Structure formats: structure tokens, C-alpha cells
């Protein structure tokens, strides 16, 4: 490697470190500033809480074991809705692909449901599905299912026409075309839609927990609001931020693992 190249690489590394440093700086300054302003009563700690209070609350939640129950509940609902959403999305996308007339018929309805703010359906869902976990799952499905269907279906439509012709020239039937071409080809589309899907699912689950629940991080937040314990609300939000970040990272990891095996 030439001296010049080494220099450029070193510069690039330095820039990377600088970016990480700047990010940490922003986070730390934010929390310290918040703490100081709250301590000095410049902002009302009753409404804005403070980092130390939030950490203390989280610590107490951990000690009482409550935190794990909430995290477990939200996680469980999210994973369940995620798996159901992807599987149903997959099956429905296949049906739409195999029956183009069906796809044309329901196209405007899909668009309509997709553009509807799903939370508006909350009250009805509760009545129909019951004030329990079912409603939360349904809420999450409403949000992630349409996205799954459209994503996977569009992946199917994007399959190279030449390859379909090739299989037909071998005498392949519809099921063989699905098995040998459409599904493996859209595996990439499905994988790349996992990330957006998990985010959508989490939104749905938290929305569902806002509406009905006795457990879960959404519940923690809504409960805190009801008893006007803003520290609890913020503790819930902080936990949610960490949780969603972790989920996202796990899905990214899965995505990488799946896409390397061609």
C-alpha cells in the first residue's frame, strides 16, 4: 500500500471516530443538560422528569421484576404478530399472483386500508376481538399485513419474464414455477422487507397496548400518563427505544445471515 493510500485510510478512520464521538457527545450533553435544568428547577421536574429519576424508576422496575414482564409481553406480541404478518402476507401475495383478476378486484381496497390510520379502527377491534392480547395482535396485523402483502406481491411481479418463459418451455406447471422461481427469487424481497415489517409491527403492538392491555411497555406508558407519573412514562419510552433498537439490530443480523446464503 502506498503512503498516500495509508494517509487517506487513516483520515477516513479518524472521521469515523469523530462521528461516533460527536454522537456520544450529543447524547451525554442532552442528558446532563436535562439533569441540570431539572435540578435547578429551570424546567418543571414534575412534568419533564429527569434522567436520574428515570433511571431510578427503571431500577425499581427491575428490582420488582415488573420490567421483564412488560418487556416479555411486548416482545412476545411483536414476534407473534410479525410471524403471522409475514406468513399471511406471503400466502395472500401468492393468491394475488396466481389470480390476477382477484388482485385487480381488491387493489383499491388494499390501497384504502393501507392509507387509513389504523388506530381509528381500535375501538371496533376491541369490541370484536375482545379486550385482550387478540386485539393487540389484530392491531399490529392491520399495520404490518398490508405492507407485507404489497411488498411480497411486488417482488413476485418483478420476477424476470425470461425466466418464466424458460420454465414454461420446460413444461413447468404453475406450482413448479412458484417453487423453482417465484418463491426463491422473491426470498430477497421478503428478507429486505423484514426490517420495515418489524418496525411496523412494533408500532401496531404499542398502539394496541395503548388501547387494551394490562401488561407491556405500551401499557406502562399509558398507565404512567393516567396516574400522571411522567417519570414512569419516560422510563417506558426509554425502555422502548432500547428495545426497538435491539429488535432492529437482531433483524438486520438475520437479514445479513439469510442474504449471504445467496
Amino acid at each position, binding site marked *: 500500500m502506498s503512503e498516500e493510500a495509508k494517509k487517506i485510510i487513516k483520515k477516513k478512520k479518524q472521521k469515523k471516530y469523530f462521528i461516533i464521538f460527536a454522537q456520544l457527545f450529543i447524547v451525554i450533553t442532552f442528558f446532563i443538560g436535562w439533569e441540570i435544568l431539572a435540578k435547578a428547577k429551570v424546567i418543571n421536574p414534575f412534568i419533564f422528569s429527569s434522567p436520574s429519576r428515570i433511571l431510578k424508576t427503571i431500577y425499581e422496575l427491575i428490582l420488582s421484576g415488573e420490567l421483564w414482564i412488560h418487556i416479555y409481553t411486548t416482545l412476545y406480541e411483536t414476534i407473534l404478530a410479525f410471524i403471522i404478518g409475514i406468513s399471511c402476507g406471503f400466502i395472500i401475495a401468492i393468491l394475488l399472483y396466481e389470480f390476477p383478476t382477484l388482485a385487480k378486484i381488491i387493489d383499491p381496497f388494499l390501497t384504502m386500508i393501507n392509507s387509513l390510520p389504523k388506530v381509528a379502527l381500535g375501538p371496533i377491534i376491541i369490541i370484536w376481538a375482545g379486550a385482550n392480547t387478540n386485539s393487540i395482535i389484530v392491531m399490529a396485523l392491520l399495520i404490518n399485513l398490508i405492507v407485507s402483502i404489497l411488498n411480497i406481491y411486488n417482488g413476485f411481479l418483478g420476477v424476470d419474464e425470461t425466466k418464466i418463459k*424458460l420454465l414454461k418451455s*420446460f*413444461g*413447468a406447471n404453475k406450482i*413448479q414455477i412458484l417453487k423453482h*422461481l417465484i418463491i426463491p427469487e422473491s426470498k430477497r424481497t421478503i428478507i429486505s422487507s423484514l426490517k420495515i415489517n418489524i418496525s411496523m409491527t412494533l408500532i401496531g403492538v404499542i398502539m394496541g397496548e395503548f388501547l387494551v392491555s394490562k401488561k407491556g411497555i405500551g401499557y406502562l406508558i399509558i398507565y404512567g400518563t393516567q396516574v400522571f407519573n411522567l417519570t414512569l412514562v419516560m422510563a417506558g419510552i426509554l425502555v422502548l427505544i432500547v428495545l426497538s433498537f435491539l429488535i432492529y439490530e437482531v433483524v438486520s443480523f438475520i437479514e445479513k445471515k439469510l442474504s449471504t446464503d445467496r
Partner: protein
Amino acid sequence: MNNLLDIHEIKKNYITDKEEIEAIKSISFSVKKGEIITLVGSSGCGKSSLLSIIAGIDHATNGSFQFHKENPIIGYMLQNDALFPWLTIYQNALLGLKIQKKNTKENQEYVKKLFKTYNLEEFMNKYPKELSGGMKQRVALIRTLAIKPDILLLDEPFSALDYQSRLAVSDDVFKIIKREKITTIMVSHDIAEAISMSDRIVVLSKRPCYVKKIYDIYLTNKQNPIENRKAKEFADYYNKIWKDLDIFV
């Protein structure tokens, strides 16, 4: 009678949402066993449509074609290699056999032999993206040969390649076809390529196409496509076909 295929007054109209497009007016010709016959015609005149019909992928609006062989096996090769990126080269080559439920030990051995014969053995376990365009096209040909076709339909099989590989690969493909003695209908928009590879050339009119002329190609000292371009009759055929095609640029 040594005809493998008779095509009789085939007509093809496409019906879209708005209109009816007449793609093929009427096409009749016969294909002799073992020959390479090339269709030339301006782009959009209906060449691919005709091959799709013969391949059984599409139906003719009118007319018929008849193979003088029971249950003929048809090998179809298209413009791009259409290799599946998630399969190895070897698995790609077995695709047709799998579809036709003929993926037997014996046939697998045959495919391996093809790889060996055409110097692709060392690439069998590689993935398509690791191969050059010319190699991929040869793999596509092996995939087609694997099902032991009675007739080969080649739809501008080299048009995605650059000029150099195009010459080399068409030369290779020609040798393979001749060695395996497979009857071939090829489509090309390259007159020189057509003359250098074919036993006969069918010149089609503009859309909706009909058969304008059929040339038997006699070249002195006929050998491989690259050498054939040097034959003394070459320019004569070229000029005639060029005139027939009536190309304006």
C-alpha cells in the same frame, strides 16, 4: 421425408386492452432434420412470437405446425442466459431435468459429461455471478442440452454479449450444435452472424411478418462461423439479404 417440423400458415394477433396487434401475417416453412435455420427480420416483426408458439408457450391465432416425431422435446434459449443466481452452475443445468422429472443418475452423468466436454467442469460448483457473460451463455446451452432436445430454439442468444464474446460464443455454440447434431431454429438480427452459422436463412418482412425469401447458404469450404465469414459467397448473401430487409437508417 427428412423434415422434422412443418410450419403451416401460422398467424398471430395479440389482443391488448385497446387494440388488436397483427404480429404474424402468415408463416410457412419446413425445418429439415439436423439443419440450422435462421430467421432474420427487423426488430418487432414477430420472430420471438413465432418461437414462443413453436415452444408451446403461446398459441397461434391461426394455422398449425407439426413435428414428425412423437412428443418432441424442445430446447429454448433466450436473449439473456436466465440463470438462477441462487443455484450453482450445476444445479442450474439440472433445472430442466428437475421440471420434467427426469433428474436421474444417468442424466446427471450426462450433464457432467457436457460440462467436461465444453470445458466448464471446474465451474460447476460456482454461482452464475462468478462467470463471464460468454460462459453463462454456454451454461444456458448446457441446461438446454441436458433435456436432450429434438429441436433447439435460439432467440437472439448472443445479443446481450459484447462483440468479441459474441463471436467466440457463437463459434462455440455452433460447434456444440453441430457435434450434437441438433436441429436448430435461430433468430438473429445480425445478417453476418446468420450467414456464418446457418444452413438456411428465412428472411421475414416487417410486421406483420410473412416469409419474404428463403436462402440456402452454400459457402465454399464451409467450416466454423468465424472462418465462414471469409468465404467468397459471403458478401453476395449479405447484400441480398440486406436488400430484402429493406432497412432504412
